[in-house]
């Protein structure tokens, strides 16, 4: 049974609410006194009990589960992510600022990944089993096994420490994006190469292609009009799955390169028990993830109308 587009949308909403509620329950049941962590983060020192109580009251931690849940979900439904327990600043502008560092990095990494993976996959698929193909697959396999944080450190070592071509830590200049984007992009490329390659091979294996060749349709137009749309569906689907890899990689890479993006935002929020911030990042991640996948589902249906029809 494949639901319609409306069904998919409904499913996306259920899933995002599920993730949000699960996080809230987890936050609320985490061991340790969150007020203590918040107070330490706020005052940079250990504070007396009365200050701790004050922090607890401000963060709404003394109200119990249900009042806290209502106090969180009510404003959230009208798009208010609340205020940071540590700084007292509104979460949303800070989140947008962090996203301003993360989004360009994600885009740059995706561009690098695609611009490596596409030519490599096309070369490899030209002659399956040939030397080029085997090399490409081998490179991709090795690339997929290298942990992104290690790759990041290796790139820092080579380009920032030994050669001193580019800066490594922070995000002050535009050049700061080069190394993190390269780190992530190489990882994305490794995963995509294999998938694009098998997508092309599969599309080429479709029965109707020899018929076109016999009718004298040029190779180029076969590739453009028939192989490309067929290869596009698995590639686009996998781009959706790659998104998970990308988001995970972003988290690691931002921490390694000390970029003030979402990754560092999340890790810092977790360490300081800044519940509103943790929830905001979780919710944003789930939203991005679910809606990108939703868009991909819809895109695939446009490319191949058979998907989603009963009996397909």
């Amino acid at each position, binding site marked *: 049974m494949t639901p319609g587009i409306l069904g998919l949308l409904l*499913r996306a909403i*259920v*899933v*995002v609410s*599920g*993730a949000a509620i*699960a*996080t809230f329950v*987890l*936050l609320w049941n*985490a*061991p*340790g006194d969150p007020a203590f962590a918040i107070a330490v983060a706020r005052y940079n020192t250990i504070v007396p009990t009365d200050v701790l109580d004050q922090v607890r009251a401000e963060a709404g931690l003394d109200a119990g589960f249900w009042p806290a849940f209502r106090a969180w979900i009510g404003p959230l439904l009208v798009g208010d992510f609340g205020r940071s327990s540590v700084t007292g600043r509104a979460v949303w502008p800070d989140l947008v600022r962090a996203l301003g560092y993360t989004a360009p990095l994600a885009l740059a990494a995706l561009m690098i990944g695609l611009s490596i993976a596409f030519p490599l996959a096309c070369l490899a698929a030209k002659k399956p089993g040939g030397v080029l193909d085997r090399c490409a697959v081998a490179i991709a*396999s*090795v690339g*997929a*096994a*290298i*942990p992104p*944080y*290690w790759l990041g*450190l*290796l790139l*820092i*070592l080579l380009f920032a*420490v030994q050669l001193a071509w580019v800066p490594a830590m922070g995000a002050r200049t535009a050049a700061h994006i080069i190394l993190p984007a390269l780190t992530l992009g190489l990882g994305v490329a490794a995963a995509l190469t294999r998938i694009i390659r098998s997508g092309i091979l599969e599309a080429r294996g479709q029965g109707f292609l020899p018929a076109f060749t016999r009718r004298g349709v040029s190779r180029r137009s076969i590739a453009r009009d028939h192989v490309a749309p067929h290869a596009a569906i698995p590639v686009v689907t996998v781009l959706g799955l790659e*998104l*998970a*890899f990308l*988001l*995970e990689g972003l*988290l*690691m890479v931002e*921490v*390694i390169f000390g970029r003030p993006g979402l990754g560092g935002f*999340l*890790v810092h929020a*977790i*360490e300081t*028990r800044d519940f509103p911030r*943790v929830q905001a990042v*979780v919710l944003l*991640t*789930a939203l991005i*993830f*679910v809606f990108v996948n939703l868009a991909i589902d819809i895109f695939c249906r446009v490319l191949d109308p058979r998907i989603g029809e009963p009996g397909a």
Partner: protein
Amino acid sequence: MRSVLALALIFILLAVLGPVLAPYDPAAINIPNRLGPPSADWLLGTDALGRDILSRLLHGARWSLGLAFLISVIGLCIGTVVGLVAAQGGKLADWSVMRTTDTFLAFPELVAAVVIAGLLGAGTGTLILALSVTGWMRYARVVRGIGLALKSRGYVVQAKLAGMSPLVIAHRHYIPAMMPSLIVVWTGMFAHTILGISALGFLGFGVQPPTAEWGTMLLDARIHIRSTPLQMIWPGLAVAISVLAINLCGDALRDSLAARNS
């Protein structure tokens, strides 16, 4: 194929025998000898506290590979049970199980694991919990898919008509038929979990020092990237090679299964 299998076996052996093979105590601090280069006595050099890196790597194999094995098996068990419930339990069970799975999948595993491990407090126990909770969905999907296909097969209907309990039917008919696919998924998850453990270790949410674990070792080595860059090469290399070996084993397994089926 043979060489890959051999490589994977060597790593498993190293993980099992690591503590025996290690030349030094992995926790023995030797400050005068700190950040030493590779030498005849210390094959891979020493870290910031003068501990032997080779010994730490060998002991670390137990944590990195052993924990990954444990976690991927826990995920396998959870996922199989969940998938079987979805496949055998009727429409309502299927719907609720699959929506739960979607909810878990709606989140990049590592981000979820970081949130869970970070909030519950870093440590080996929370590491296992965080990665198990986030690592069962692929199994569940595979099991459910195969299970739904098997459900209408004659022999499953016959077993149901004979009055066998769902547990017995699962044990007798479902699980054996799913095993090959499950093993392929499992190798992928095993490799994935190795990466996850070292990532959490690297972020400081995983196995805690002074225990030697590859991700934690990388975290330690990172500060000394300028003075002793070699120190951060080894643990990363260990992670990459073991992940590569396991992934290649999984690929070979999948190919041979596909060849057998066709």
